[in-house]
């Protein structure tokens, strides 16, 4: 008979996903240094939502905070997945772009300022369609400008995930950090089902969804740098380490030859098992977290 052996330490962890966007941003800064900019009291709301009978929010679902992380200058931009699915509108998009641009300006002037993006977003907010899409293009450009001087770190923690145009912003970041519950992809399952039919993708199949977009799979594939548990302390530690590490020698989205040859080697005439589409040596085991711990406990017990 097997016994129930669990890690109390894992279960007593503090959840990062559960925090509000503001608290998530705040949690990353060295104690007391986080300061919100263009906050809800500035009341810069989306000018387009009310025209369509949608109640706007005073922070437009996007929090910008400045301070220090691991002693270094940093700006954190956090999206609130509960407001309009974290969709990028004119205001939230401009907040992100401007924060990146100011960090870039300081970095160019000899004061490197890193950016951390806490992404909970389905992509462009359809109520602001063309201004949302334009904002995403500007965000991508501003990340590419900043990442030459200081790391831009995308964290995809919660099950809302990061989809649509915003998956490109994750793609051009210096580093991507995910939890197993996070999801990353260009077209979400619902969109593919809508556009290409249920036989192409059954969006109600959660196991299928996470087997493709989930953090564990993206990490196994080498499309994500670090996999963490949904644990505030782990997320903080990881972000601190990456900021200390600085700009990577080569960004993932610059390694065109590598990935182009991976795609050339795939055979689209066969049915794919997501787990087989993997290009990372790190695909065998996750580095952090309890899955490993539980497994080793079980092993011990079986001996």
């Amino acid at each position, binding site marked *: 008979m097997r016994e129930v052996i669990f890690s109390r330490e894992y279960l007593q962890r503090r959840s990062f996903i559960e925090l509000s966007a503001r608290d998530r941003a705040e949690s990353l800064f060295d104690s007391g240094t986080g300061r919100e900019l263009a906050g809800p009291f500035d009341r810069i709301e989306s000018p387009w939502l009310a025209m369509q009978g949608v109640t706007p929010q005073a922070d437009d679902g996007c929090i910008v905070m400045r301070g220090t992380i691991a002693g270094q200058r940093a700006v954190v931009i956090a999206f609130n997945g509960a407001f309009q699915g974290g969709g990028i509108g004119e205001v939230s998009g401009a907040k992100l772009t401007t924060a990146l641009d100011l960090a870039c300006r300081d970095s160019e002037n000899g004061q490197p300022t890193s950016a951390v993006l806490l992404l909970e977003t389905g992509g462009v907010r359809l109520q602001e369609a063309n201004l949302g899409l334009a904002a995403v293009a500007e965000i991508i450009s501003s990340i590419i400008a900043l990442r030459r001087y200081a790391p831009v770190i995308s964290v995809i923690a919660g099950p809302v995930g990061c989809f649509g145009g915003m998956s490109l912003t994750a793609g051009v970041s210096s580093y991507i950090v995910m939890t197993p519950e996070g999801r990353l992809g260009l077209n979400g399952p619902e969109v593919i089902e809508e556009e290409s039919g249920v036989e192409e993708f059954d969006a109600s199949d959660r196991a299928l969804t996470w087997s493709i977009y*989930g953090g564990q799979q993206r990490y196994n594939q080498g499309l994500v740098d670090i996999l963490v548990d949904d644990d505030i302390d782990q997320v903080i530690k990881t972000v601190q380490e990456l900021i200390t590490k600085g700009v990577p020698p080569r960004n993932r989205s610059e390694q065109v030859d590598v990935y182009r040859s991976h795609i050339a080697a795939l055979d689209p005439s066969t049915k794919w098992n997501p787990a087989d589409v993997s290009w990372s040596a790190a695909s065998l085991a996750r580095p952090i977290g309890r899955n490993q711990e539980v497994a080793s406990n079980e092993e011990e017990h079986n001996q």
Partner: protein
Amino acid sequence: MKGPILPPEKIVDALERLIKSHDRVVLEGDNQKQADFLSRSLVKVDPKRLQDLHLIISSISRPEHLTLFELGIAKKVDFSFAGPQSLRLAQLLEDGKIEVGAIHTYVELYARLLIDLIPDVVLVCAEQADEQGNLYTGPNTEDTPVIVEAAAFHDGIVIAQVNQITGSLPRVDIPGSWIDLVVQADRPFALEPLFTRDPRKIDDLQILMGMMVIRGIYERHNVQSLNHGIGFGTAAIELLLPTYGESLGLKGKICQHWALNPHPTLIPAIESGWVKSVHCFGSEVGMDDYIAARPDIFFTGRDGRLRSNRVLCQLAGQYAVDAFIGSTLQMDGDANSSTVTKGRLAGFGGAPNMGHDPHGRRHTSPAWLDLISSPGPVARGRKLVVQVVETFHSGASPAFVETLDAVAVGQKAGMPIAPVMIYGDDVSHVVTEEGIAYLYKAEGQEDRRRALAAVAGVSPIGLKAKPAETAALRKRGIVAYPEDIGVHRLQANRSLLAARSMEDLVAWSGGLYTPPPRFKSW
């Protein structure tokens, strides 16, 4: 044919020969497991040979159940629950294609199998059979024993579908001498994970109500034994015991014995040492290995697997527990409640069995005695029947209404009485996000209505509350708001939950709980 074993390809022929038109046939199917190979076979019989069966089925869950009526193979039905098929059932009734005997609670329907609905043929399911026809029903034994018994000992025919025929069974749940025919199904019987609630979907209001229940009801009345419904509200309570409950020093003092399916959300409370025993109506998909590892808590056989039994657990839930707590879709000003809404004939399932005060109870317990509200030499105690209701549903329709939809639905369906799930006079407590109404303490009908209105928010019922009356009710202890019982609204957030995701539940189980794929988000 060898012994009782029938080759699967002969099943339709066998059904045509063994069942006669107008027979009373029990088709096993509850809210969890379904003898679906037999139901899929029964729709294939020739409607010219077999007509107007009287079907007895606890849960009308599968489309083919109603196809039997469309084809004329069956005419009359007695049942308990029709959740997934409730719309189509209402339509067939309107078209005159189906005749409803009555809508029952589960245990009531089984009781009638022994009195005035004695079956001619029963079609049941099991996991395994041996060549003598002994059955292993395993963790999902559920209703099978009582259905078989009603036929086997009264000249009825018992036909069982099994997932597998094997040389030796892990244990015998039903002896082969009760069984006439065994047939191997084309695929394992259908099983629904009805009792699995994803902690990710529990919200702060449900947590607030859970805290109020723990303080204002479980602690206050010293509730030792209980049954929980399947909503997110009760899942929240289960996940608050090891955290909030522990912080109040209540471990070992409340909630020790349960009549409950193996809810995954109960794992943290079990692993934290809150729970002494759990008897189950049925099992739950993915919980088998975890249950097998906790034979000290669950009822398990020598093979290590759970033995469930719906009738016995229903009985236990009526006579042996201090409290029932569940939720509802609608409640009227007298605390009558129903899950029947317009256009749907859903039935009751087991809730009314749990959700009433059994007058045949004679043993006492501290909680039962604590509900005595009138002095007198022959006063009796009372079971706690608690309803947890948010005053509004998402989409802004009020849960508290002047008249239950059930009244109109009952009239339209020609039912002699409205399909009320739990009658108001059985309800001892109502908990909303506003507070608790201790209805059992109210003096007279008007007092009761005022108490309910005081916690019904801005629903049509709640708008009848008057501040002065409410203040007086709070003073008399008939209504309590969170602050009256030391519950802090600001403390009510998800960080209080012992598990906040399915993944956490798996971790609490040490990896032994394996959730169905549709609940996985990692």
